């Protein structure tokens, strides 16, 4: 909790949440809270249950058991009032293909019951904010993947929501497109918005999120700030030694993780590992990151998830 007194009620509270689709247990007892003004990342591989959790938060899917509180109330009880305060950026592109860029925002604003005058002011501002103003009259079909993503984010902001839920906002985009979106998300955070995002990019999570909730197989494995998680589960450094390991290398007492074509050693002092190596042995040393945390927690890499 960020020590803000006004933040007495979490924006989202999820308690023992479970969702079964027939035999498939998509979510298996997930609990967490998200406080106002923070950016929280749900980090996990595809199929970890991230999207299902988001759908339950938005009352687009019913939990099998457990509950969701949004702004302190059950989302279904909040009904329309809840939807007015949340902007959703879904994973798939569901922009309106029959409408232009500008019309997508205007029509979406009407779904929020916003008057025409307000939308006439707000739509150009949002197009400017997401750098789409030159494409205002283009058809959605003519946009690049990055522009579509930006338009979906602009659309989610149409009613000036307090909470923005983003499901894999930058998946499949090139680096420049991702950086632009990240910058805008940081701007939104500065404005005091609460952000919940799912991602399987650790750099994205590390860069944007105050807190990270690591999810795999429908369960929360751990949560904390990026640095807390690294301190808890990895060491400051990772020494990576490709296989086959050099002859005579003794790994007794070292924390190791076999990733197939190489072995990772976690240490606060890289020389503890490197001094055991014969001269001219190949190795790389780097600072630990969330990928290492994820590997330690699950035994498999983020990107090769189901």
């Amino acid at each position, binding site marked *: 909790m960020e020590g803000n007194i006004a933040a007495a009620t979490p924006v989202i509270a999820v308690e023992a949440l479970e969702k079964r689709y027939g035999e498939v247990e998509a979510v298996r007892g997930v609990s967490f809270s998200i406080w106002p003004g923070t950016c929280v990342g749900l980090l996990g591989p595809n199929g970890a249950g991230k999207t299902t959790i988001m759908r339950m938060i938005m009352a687009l899917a019913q939990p099998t058991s457990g509950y969701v509180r949004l702004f302190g109330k059950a989302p279904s009880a909040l009904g329309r009032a809840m939807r007015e305060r949340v902007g959703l950026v*879904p994973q798939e592109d569901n922009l309106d293909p029959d409408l232009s860029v500008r019309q997508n925002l205007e029509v979406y604003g009407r*779904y929020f*019951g916003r008057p025409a005058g307000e939308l006439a002011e707000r739509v150009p501002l949002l197009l400017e904010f997401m750098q789409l103003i030159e494409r205002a009259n283009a058809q959605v079909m003519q946009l690049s993947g990055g522009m579509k993503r930006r338009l979906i984010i602009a659309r989610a902001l149409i009613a000036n929501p307090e909470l923005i839920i983003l499901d894999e906002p930058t998946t499949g985009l090139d680096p420049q497109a991702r950086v632009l979106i990240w910058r805008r998300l940081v701007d939104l955070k500065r404005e005091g918005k609460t952000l919940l995002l799912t991602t399987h990019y650790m750099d994205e999570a590390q860069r944007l999120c105050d807190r990270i909730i690591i999810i795999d197989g429908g369960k929360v494995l751990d949560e904390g700030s990026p640095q807390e998680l690294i301190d808890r589960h990895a060491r400051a450094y990772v020494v990576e030694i490709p296989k086959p390991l050099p002859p005579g290398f003794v790994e007794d007492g070292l924390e190791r993780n076999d990733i197939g074509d190489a072995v990772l050693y976690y240490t606060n002092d890289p020389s503890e590992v490197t001094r055991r190596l014969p001269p001219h042995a190949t190795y790389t040393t780097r600072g630990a990151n969330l990928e290492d945390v994820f590997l330690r927690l699950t035994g498999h890499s983020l990107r090769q998830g189901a």
Partner: protein
Amino acid sequence: MSAPIGAIPVNRYSRAVWRRNALVWRRLIGPSLATNVLDPLIFLFAFGYGLGAVIDQVGGLNYLSFVVPGMMGYAAMFAASFESTVSTYARFHMQRTWDAILATPVTLTELMLGEMSWAATKGLFSCCCVILVGSVWGGIGNPWGVVLALPVLALGAVCFASCGLVVTAHAKSWDIFAYFFTFWVTPMFMFSGTFFEVARFPWFIQVIAWILPMTHLIAVVRPLTAGLALDPLAALGHVSYLAALAVAAFCFARLKFGARLFG
């Protein structure tokens, strides 16, 4: 643009959905007007020369006066049915437009009301094109009767649109719509008194005909536009049937969509 049909509880959220469809359609208004006017012209030309020459009188009317109200009903039925099935399915399933809308304050019922009233609007538009053609070509005996028939035709369009939504709610692919046209649209074209008198068919076809909403719609519209006597009690019965079916179909579709989308 405002609420298309005053009788339906249309709020600003369902109106936003209606307006979305109207906005997209506005670009197509030219071709749409042309086809909707040309269609009945071709029909009238073909039937007028093909059948009108052979048939002198049907049910106490000349064939033109008999067939024009039938075509009004048919136009309303076809356009509303098509819009609430094939076009709505595209928005619901293929384009994921519904997913985007359901993440906003618009509720599923309002979304469906918006789609349904839009489909009904298109039905009424098609119907008005037939009236336009009929008033020039002939076949409307009583112009004031048309004014009275319009609200009934609107109710019919609402009923057809709601029935279409039931099919869309169950659709898992495009295939189901082939059955819908074969077993629902075509029988209403053939057996509901559109082009032939219902009483001419064998009894079991007549039973089916009176289950179909189109038969009830035509039974009210034809006497009105032709200026024949209309039993008020019978008219009330037909209108009640259309209204009840519309409500039942809409509620049934709402249940099915709810289970499918939020299950």
